[in-house]
């Protein structure tokens, strides 16, 4: 669309919508400096301890639970991203460029999670693992400390499961414009299939794969519902932790956490944008 | 006096440029286009021809000056209230509508009743030879067919003027030639004024009744194909249309409408002088290659000598490149009358090139 003179009404509505989008975030950030511990009303800027106005931020770093949750979240995100990106890219290649028995069925199955409400998938996985663990535990008569339970493993595995369809989708979109003749040219010049893949195909689809990976990472980082049903002791992620907090006392520490989260993401995005601009 | 179909009177158009400066796309253009004419706006990219067309259509408003359609000033009238229709370069067919719905669109906006719409749509499609295509979608049609739909969609509204923006640009050569004849036929049949924009001078010469040659926002010359080709009024027009030879020299003698021009190397020739010149003035003489002859011809007063640098055989003609004494180069086009291939001169050979005074024109700019 070409830029035309904008109707002032349109601009006004747009500003209001942007305001609606940002009001909660601004409130979050402001209240992270709240002097009041109960964080209901804003009682002025806090000024306590060595960190002064950033009191709650410092408290955050001393909070063991938060640090654990952050660590878990990151471990889960990284692991599931790597695995789902690899598997998803392979699937995208398969669907886009090959014909094989059961292709239609595979495609439908692969994309099914996208139209499935997360809770359905979460419950399903919970039921599945409960049953499987139950049988294994009874069959092998494991001692309580050795029993298989929900935990980091189940969370990672379920994150991989819901990320794969999205990675496949993104990579496939990128494969769409791919010129097969580039690979033929490489092979004509003496490269075998693996070398061709490594030196020609992979670099060219890399942006798509990267985009898919970023999507998987974001989905994992932010996920609540599926994690909620597949998590166990010691595998608390940040979203789960925050949810737990909301049921108890909420101090401005949570706001500090939120604010840090926002800025970290902003920085990561800025960096990735910078990378993209370079290519 | 019958009013003009379209008139531009002292029209200027300025745009804000990318760096903040002002770009003048159209400079004081005045044009009169007659009813029932097939009129071309011809020129290279950026000459202002498309902008002029868009101002007639109403997509741009003139910064200064006025546009009249059948004597009525258009002022700030928006496009949907003007009695003109446009065929866009990219056809701009609505992808979500069928061909029939596309063609019917303008009539629907005007509130024509359904039966009448159906009848006129069928009529319009028949006129472009796409009867029966009503239910298809644009993406199912080839480029040539889409273009004809765009034509039908415009013509069905019976506009007073039809505007065409580089309509044949996207077609391959053969299709383009067919469509040129097709458009010409249509225009005769429908009888309204067609104004079309093109950068292809051959196309303009083939199809138009009159042509306006534009460059740098200015209309350099307006006339029939013959007028523009045989009597270009400036160097740009002479160069842009067809192939021309340019010879630089100084005026040595003036005799009413003729002048003797001296070229370096001791060459002298007489040329037709439509403008006033003075002795000693530096001028350019233009001569079309086909008006120059290596064959002897009694009526050709002008004779220049040089030697042949290259020969190109094209079947219908043979082109000779000649370097004159004094260093200037010309190209001579001789028709191959005889079935035997016989060169009039060989490479490196000295030749005498002749042409008449009427074939040579003096240009001062």
């Amino acid at each position, binding site marked *: *669309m*070409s*830029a*035309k003179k904008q109707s002032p009404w*349109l601009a006004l*509505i*747009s500003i209001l*919508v*942007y305001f*609606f*989008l940002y009001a*909660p975030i601004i*409130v979050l950030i402001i*209240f992270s400096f709240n002097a009041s511990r109960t964080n209901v*009303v804003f009682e002025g800027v806090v000024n306590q301890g060595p960190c002064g106005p950033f009191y709650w931020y410092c408290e955050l770093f001393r909070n063991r639970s938060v640090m654990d949750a952050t660590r878990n979240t990151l471990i889960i995100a990284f692991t599931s991203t790597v695995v789902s990106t690899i*598997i998803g890219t*392979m*699937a995208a*290649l*398969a*669907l886009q460029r*090959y*014909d*094989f028995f059961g292709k239609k069925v595979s495609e439908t*199955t*692969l994309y099914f*999670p996208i*139209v*499935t*409400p997360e*809770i*359905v998938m979460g*419950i*399903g996985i919970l*039921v599945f693992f409960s049953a499987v663990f139950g049988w294994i535990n009874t069959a092998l008569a494991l001692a309580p400390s050795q029993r298989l339970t929900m935990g980091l493993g189940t969370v990672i595995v379920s994150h*991989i*499961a819901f990320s794969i369809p999205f990675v*496949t*989708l993104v990579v496939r*979109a990128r494969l769409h414009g791919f010129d097969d003749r580039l690979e033929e040219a490489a092979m004509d010049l003496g490269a075998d299939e693996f070398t061709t893949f490594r030196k020609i195909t992979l670099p060219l689809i890399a942006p798509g794969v990267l985009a898919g990976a970023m999507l998987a990472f974001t989905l994992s*980082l932010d996920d609540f*519902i599926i994690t909620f049903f597949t998590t166990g002791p010691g595998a608390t992620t940040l979203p789960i932790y*925050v949810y737990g907090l*909301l049921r108890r006392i909420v101090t401005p520490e*949570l706001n500090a956490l*939120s604010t840090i*989260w926002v800025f970290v993401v*902003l920085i990561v995005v800025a960096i990735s944008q910078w990378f993209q601009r370079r290519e | 006096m019958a009013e003009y179909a379209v008139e531009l009177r002292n029209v200027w158009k300025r745009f804000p440029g990318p760096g903040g400066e002002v770009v003048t796309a159209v400079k004081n253009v005045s044009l009169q286009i007659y009813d029932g004419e097939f009129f071309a706006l011809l020129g290279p990219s950026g000459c202002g021809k498309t902008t002029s067309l868009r101002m007639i259509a109403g*997509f741009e408003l003139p910064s200064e000056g006025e546009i009249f359609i059948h004597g009525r000033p258009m002022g700030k009238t*928006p*496009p*949907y209230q003007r009695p003109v*229709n446009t065929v*866009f370069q990219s056809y*701009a*067919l*609505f992808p979500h509508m069928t061909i029939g719905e596309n063609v019917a*669109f303008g009539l629907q*906006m*005007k509130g024509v009743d359904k039966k009448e719409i159906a009848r006129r749509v069928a009529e319009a499609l028949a006129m472009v030879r796409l009867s029966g295509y009503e239910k298809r979608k644009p993406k199912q049609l080839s480029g040539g067919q889409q273009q004809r739909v765009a034509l039908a969609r415009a013509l069905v509204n019976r506009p007073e003027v039809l505007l065409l923006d580089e309509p044949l640009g996207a077609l391959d050569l053969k299709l383009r030639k067919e469509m040129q004849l097709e458009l010409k036929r249509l225009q005769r049949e429908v009888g309204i004024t067609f104004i079309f924009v093109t950068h292809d001078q051959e196309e303009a010469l083939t199809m138009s009744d009159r042509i306006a040659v534009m460059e740098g926002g200015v209309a350099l010359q307006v006339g029939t194909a013959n007028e523009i080709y045989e009597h270009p009024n400036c160097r740009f027009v002479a160069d842009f249309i067809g192939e021309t030879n340019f010879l630089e020299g100084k005026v040595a003698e003036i005799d009413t409408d003729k002048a003797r021009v001296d070229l370096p190397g001791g060459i002298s020739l007489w040329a037709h002088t439509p403008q006033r010149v003075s002795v000693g003035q530096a001028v350019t003489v233009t001569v079309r290659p086909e008006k120059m002859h290596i064959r002897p011809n009694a009526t050709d007063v002008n004779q220049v000598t040089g030697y042949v640098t290259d020969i190109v055989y094209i079947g219908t003609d043979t082109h000779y490149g000649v370097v004159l004494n004094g260093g200037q180069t010309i190209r001579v086009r001789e028709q191959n009358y005889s079935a035997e291939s016989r060169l009039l001169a060989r490479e490196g050979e000295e030749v005498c090139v002749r042409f008449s005074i009427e074939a040579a024109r003096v240009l001062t700019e």
Partner: protein
Amino acid sequence: MIQQIRENRRLQGLLLILPAMFVMVMLLVIPLTLTVITSFGQRDADGNVIYTFTLENYWRLLGFTEQGWDDLYLRILLRSLWLAVQTTVIVILMAYPLAYFIARSPEKRRNFLLFLVLVPLWTNFVIRIYAWVMILRSQGVLNSTLGAIAGLLNVPFQPLDLYPSQTAVLIGMVYEFLPFMILPIYTSLEKIEPSLYEAAADLYANAFRTFWRVTVPLSMPGIVAGTILTFIPVIGTFVVSDILGGRQVILVGNLVQRQFLDARNPPFGAAASIILLVMTLVFTLYYTRRFGLREEIAAG
């Protein structure tokens, strides 16, 4: 063996998709099947599953209990559906103008404006809901601000009782999904060839008619994509209704969650889960068949 793989393209394709299929079968197909099987079961005293075949869970959900007609659960289903419809409509009404505004902005500014839309998405979803708690509660930001204004104007002020409430849940849902509608609508608006607007004007359509006959139909793929991205999660939500609705607003998601975790009635929860899935599938199939194209969803 490598040679065999090299020569047989079918085999290559199969091998490439094998890991993905393995994951999907293990973590989607089998779990769903298990859920379906469980939904036909019964619970025992400890909350474990007895695998039989009975439709009583489904009947109960639809209202036909042993004690007679009890539409408690049916109302929950309808409430969830209604919330999803309300959310989708409001989101479309808010997202379209903004998407339109961005699409008509100069190119340089567009990326920035889109970026602004995405930033809230990158905060954590639970945290965003918490922010609304802070805004909407009786002493929250909204009431404080309104109270201050009322004080200035010397007007009596009754604090709005928005939290917890169904309205709060609606606000939260709209907030969540606004970006998911803005982006697809923007994408399809942006793809519209500019000369189409001029063609419509050339054919006697003014701005208003051009909008309805050309712009809106051509942006439908975006609206469809956005609707799917909104409707499906909203139907299945439980977090937003939990936090912003207090314990009073119960949707299908809450029902499933409670039956599984609190009431320890897996078969019943499973049945609710399956009904939710069916509702979603029906909606998706109907909606895409009627309006949209699959490729557009992929693009979104």
